[in-house]
């Protein structure tokens, strides 16, 4: 016990106190983030977790799509057919689907923001026409 006390000096106590404070801060932050998601209706009041994943595990929110995502990944999370985005958006890139939206935007001669919007629209159309 004495040996333990000798090693458990001021600096470690201060660091541990800060870690405890940090943990409390984290809990408060997570609580408010959770409330924000509830407010944005991303989380239902009675569902234990995100109900938007309830559509056979497919998220219904197309706004999750970002320009850094690859077509392979987007196709995986929205359960799209392999060449759906390539044919719908007339993509010219030879690396499809293992290429990011932003990288293929350069090949398409458009901005990554515009192509991301097109991808979102294509996914939305697919989800509407293929309800599960």
């Amino acid at each position, binding site marked *: 016990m004495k040996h333990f006390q*000798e090693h458990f*000096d*001021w600096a470690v106590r201060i660091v541990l106190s*800060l870690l405890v404070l940090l943990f409390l*801060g984290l809990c408060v932050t*997570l609580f408010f983030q959770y409330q924000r998601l509830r407010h944005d209706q991303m989380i239902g009041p009675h569902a234990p977790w995100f109900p938007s994943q309830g559509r056979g595990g497919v998220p219904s929110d197309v706004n999750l799509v*970002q320009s*850094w995502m690859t077509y392979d990944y987007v196709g*995986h999370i929205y359960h799209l057919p392999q060449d759906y985005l390539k044919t719908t958006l007339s993509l010219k890139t030879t690396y499809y689907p293992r290429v990011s939206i932003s*990288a293929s935007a350069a090949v398409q001669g458009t901005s990554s923001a515009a192509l991301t919007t097109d991808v979102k629209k294509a996914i939305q159309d697919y989800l509407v026409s293929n309800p599960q």
Partner: protein
Amino acid sequence: MSTIAAALLSGLLLYKYFLLFGVFFLSALALPLPGNTLLFAAGAFASQGYMNFWYVLASVLAGNVLGDLAGYLLAARYGERIVRMFRIKRSYLDTIEGYVRKHPRPTIILSRFGGSLDPAVNVLSGMGGVPLRIFLTYDIVGNVISLFLVITAGYYLGDYWQSFSGVISTIGWILFAALAIGGIIVIYRRQVGIKSTSTTFPMHQVRKFWRTFKQYGQRD
């Protein structure tokens, strides 16, 4: 999201575990890369079935531990030479090294949660002569706990990990600041000649105060 983070996230989707290994190896060698964001994202990708949770943990752990080990061994081999080359004040370094040598276990484990503090502790452990066995054991323990926590957080947030990625970065910086402040306090206390082992708060201070109080009481 920064350009580097976006590029690395694209890379993560393309090269998966190889990229995680590389990024965490380089992060352990003090390269400023957004490791926590990637780890958080990898956890979310695992929950979506795009990556495997245990492969993510294994690749990140391997990269981080090997990077830490490289930092430790390089510091043990070339540390003194670099200190002389850059004329770093030896007294400050001795103070920190002394602390790391005296308390290697909590220092190594806590620094694994401090992001940017991790490489500094590896170097100090190498230069301070912390035994390799102790360094490696506590490095692995600390890394398993800290990495597992972040991956699990990403895993449970799933599709909505992006809403929380800013929080994770902030936590990383707060942890870094907390540990850095702790380190500065240690240096300050050593520099002004206060030995930490002689100040086992609160009992030692309380006893000293009580003795002084009794002496004054007897005098009256």
